């Protein structure tokens, strides 16, 4: 399957040699040349990716089939389910019960009030259930993130573009309200995704 990603990218002329901005224009999507990243460097990039993916700013909304977001991390004390009995439903946006946007409203600028509902300039939601990350191991998330059946058919370039376009993801590095941001920064995380992808999506179980 990994070969399919690479073959498709080659066929579409997507293996890039210079910086190309995605439609979001928030980061540079500038992958290393094919074959230039070895497995060791790819795994090192993955370790940094896992630090981000498993961080509460990301993992709290990458929860499983109970459709319950989490409250965890240094500013939350003990890890627990989201208060107010919140259930995002199979819609993952709360359509069956209370919409996430009832509190996590659309907002153009940072909502920097401690304990208030985080808000971004797009609709708040849980990640798809296939992308369950909360409490999962590095090996599990690594295999999920390279599996097109569970990553919405994305190759590394599409993952980078996803990070560029979806503003809800940018919030992880600028959460406001006294919340601990995800480690590194958005551009570094995108760079690591590209390095990991060019290395052939290595996981420790390979």
């Amino acid at each position, binding site marked *: 399957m990994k070969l399919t990603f690479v073959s498709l990218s080659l066929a579409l002329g997507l293996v890039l040699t210079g910086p190309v901005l995605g439609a979001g224009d928030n980061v540079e999507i500038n992958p290393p040349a094919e074959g230039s990243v070895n497995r060791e460097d790819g795994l090192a990039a993955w370790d940094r990716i896992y630090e981000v993916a498993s961080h509460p700013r990301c993992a709290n909304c990458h929860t499983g089939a109970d459709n319950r977001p989490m409250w965890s991390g240094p500013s939350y004390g003990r890890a627990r389910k989201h208060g107010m009995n919140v259930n995002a439903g199979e819609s993952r946006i709360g*359509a*069956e019960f209370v*919409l996430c946007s009832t509190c996590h409203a659309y907002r153009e600028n940072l909502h920097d*009030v401690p304990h*208030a*509902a985080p808000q971004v300039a797009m609709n708040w939601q849980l990640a798809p259930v296939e992308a369950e990350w909360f409490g999962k191991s590095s090996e599990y998330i690594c295999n999920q993130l390279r599996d097109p059946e569970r990553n919405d058919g994305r190759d590394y370039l599409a993952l980078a573009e996803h990070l560029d376009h979806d503003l809800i993801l940018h919030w992880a590095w600028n959460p406001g309200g006294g919340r601990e941001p995800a480690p590194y920064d958005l551009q570094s995380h995108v760079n690591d995704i590209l390095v990991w992808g060019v290395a052939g999506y290595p996981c420790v179980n390979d």
Partner: protein
Amino acid sequence: MEFTVNGEKREADVEYDMPLLWVLRDELGLKGTKYGCGVAQCGACTVHVDGVAVRSCQLAAGEAEGSDITTIEGLGTPETLHAVQEAWVEHQVAQCGYCQSGQIMQAAALLDQDPEPSDEVIDIVMSGNLCRCGTYPRIRAAVHTAAKKLQEA
């Protein structure tokens, strides 16, 4: 900014960031919607924006501009109560009453999306609306009664 509030065009000269709750209470004089916590943890400020329940303390006025807003003052009238308000009176739900406009607005939104909610659904949906008097059993009973009223109407 222009808003449609309870069917009437209203204007307010406010900043983008002002919470809709302040617009309703302080600029437009609609005091039925209550300030509870200011951080979306209690539900007292619930109103409908384009038919959807929102916590008005969390919605920036700039994002509500042009919207159709319904507050407790516009849900029913003293002469013609909304079914949820009728049920609230019949079950004597309110104790101190502070949270009740938010409870009623959330319950009305629930019945718009689910005309016959189970106890489980009521509990999930209404859990974001806190009541320090602990009127929850009466709230649940009143939601069931309101559902029957709406189905019979």
